[in-house]
């Protein structure tokens, strides 16, 4: 019996991560999911947010996805992200700016479609900032 599971994180543009892990934590549509080896098969949509991978040696790697699909097989976890990045690659200034812009857009616009768009952008920016916050916390420890 193996104590690790294989994790593949791919986005439409590139392969972000591929390797063995003890635990994967992701934000599913119905709530946060922690997946250990020999988890029952599961498939769900992902919300914008962080995906944490605890490697075989206990090291924790953090990623950010804008949404996507999570598929779990007993020994394999596949994350099909719309867009994904390593949390350390996220640009805090850019995320702050995006957040500001989305908030401004929300304040000024009245059209329903535009508001929905701005809200989606705002949610994305906020989750990016949260992912960075989490990353900073783990680095301090």
């Amino acid at each position, binding site marked *: 019996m193996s104590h690790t599971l294989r994790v593949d994180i791919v*986005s*439409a*543009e590139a392969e972000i991560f591929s390797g063995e892990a003890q635990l994967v934590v992701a934000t599913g549509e119905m709530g946060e999911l922690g997946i250990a080896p020999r988890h029952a098969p599961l498939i*769900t949509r992902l919300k914008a947010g962080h995906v944490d991978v605890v490697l075989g040696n206990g090291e924790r790697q953090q990623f950010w996805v804008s949404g996507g699909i999570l598929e779990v097989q007993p020994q394999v976890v596949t994350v099909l992200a719309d867009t994904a990045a390593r949390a350390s690659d996220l640009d805090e200034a850019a995320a702050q700016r995006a957040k500001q812009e989305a908030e401004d857009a929300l304040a000024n616009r009245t059209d329903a479609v535009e508001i929905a768009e701005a809200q989606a952008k705002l949610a994305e920016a906020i989750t990016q900032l949260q992912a960075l916050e989490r990353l900073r916390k783990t680095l301090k420890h």
Partner: protein
Amino acid sequence: MASGREIKTKIKSTQNMRKVTRALEMVSASKIRKAQDLMKASRPYARAMRKVISHIAQASTDFNHPFLVEREGVARVGYIVISTDRGLCGGLNANLFRRLLPAIREWQDKGVQVDVVAVGQKAIQFFRRLKGINLVATASNLGERPKLEALIGVMKIALDAYMGGKLDRVFLAHNEFINTMTQKPAVHALLPLPVAAGEMAEGQTGSPDYPVAGLKLEQKHDWDYIYEPDPATVLEHVLGRYIESVVYQGVLENLASEHAARMVAMKSASDNASKVIGELTLIYNKARQAAITQEISEIVGGAAAV
């Protein structure tokens, strides 16, 4: 024999033509790299998607999504045809259309209606003129970095028609990029998935990186997924994404093929121009020589007469 001046103009114009074809060749040579990178970058996603879809197909779901169900009897089929926007790329588009036509005629002989979704200027022009088919949607000018958003509209038209029972089969036609020298026109079944998988199993197409290839739909295993929130929502989303990824990959392959084909076509055009220039120069020199010889012999003849 044409006069010296006439030949000289011809040489000049051929040289200008060679300049243009050389430039086009070099432009394509630089763009092909980018197109290939794009194509390769999206392959891991397509591969992972294929794996997930094959798992889904194996699970024993109570819920039957229309994409997974093969319908009895075919009354109407749809083709999504991906072509280039611009010409001057050899027989790339012509080969694809030539590959498609017999299939379309065969459907029509069986009394099946054929709808076409054309992507790219060349396909739009071709299918607008073709009789007996319905051009239901078009998209063009995707540029050097095709965006998925630009394709969603036309895909939605085809998928909605399928979901609504207006189309019973959907096919995808594009050029497959094999290498710089070879591009292969390919027509794949896209929907329903069992048909697509059956076609692959028969080995009609063989590119290992093509997303549907190797997808086996062995029905009814003794396990099922935990679906969050529920099978309908999740499958709808996943299958939609899968189709998007297949079509998008097709567009990228076609783009890489376009640049490769244009590069090769323009290279041979440049080579031909060089050959013509060489021949014309030879004729020009001969004509000049003949004129000089004639002049001398006239002078000598004149001198002898005096």
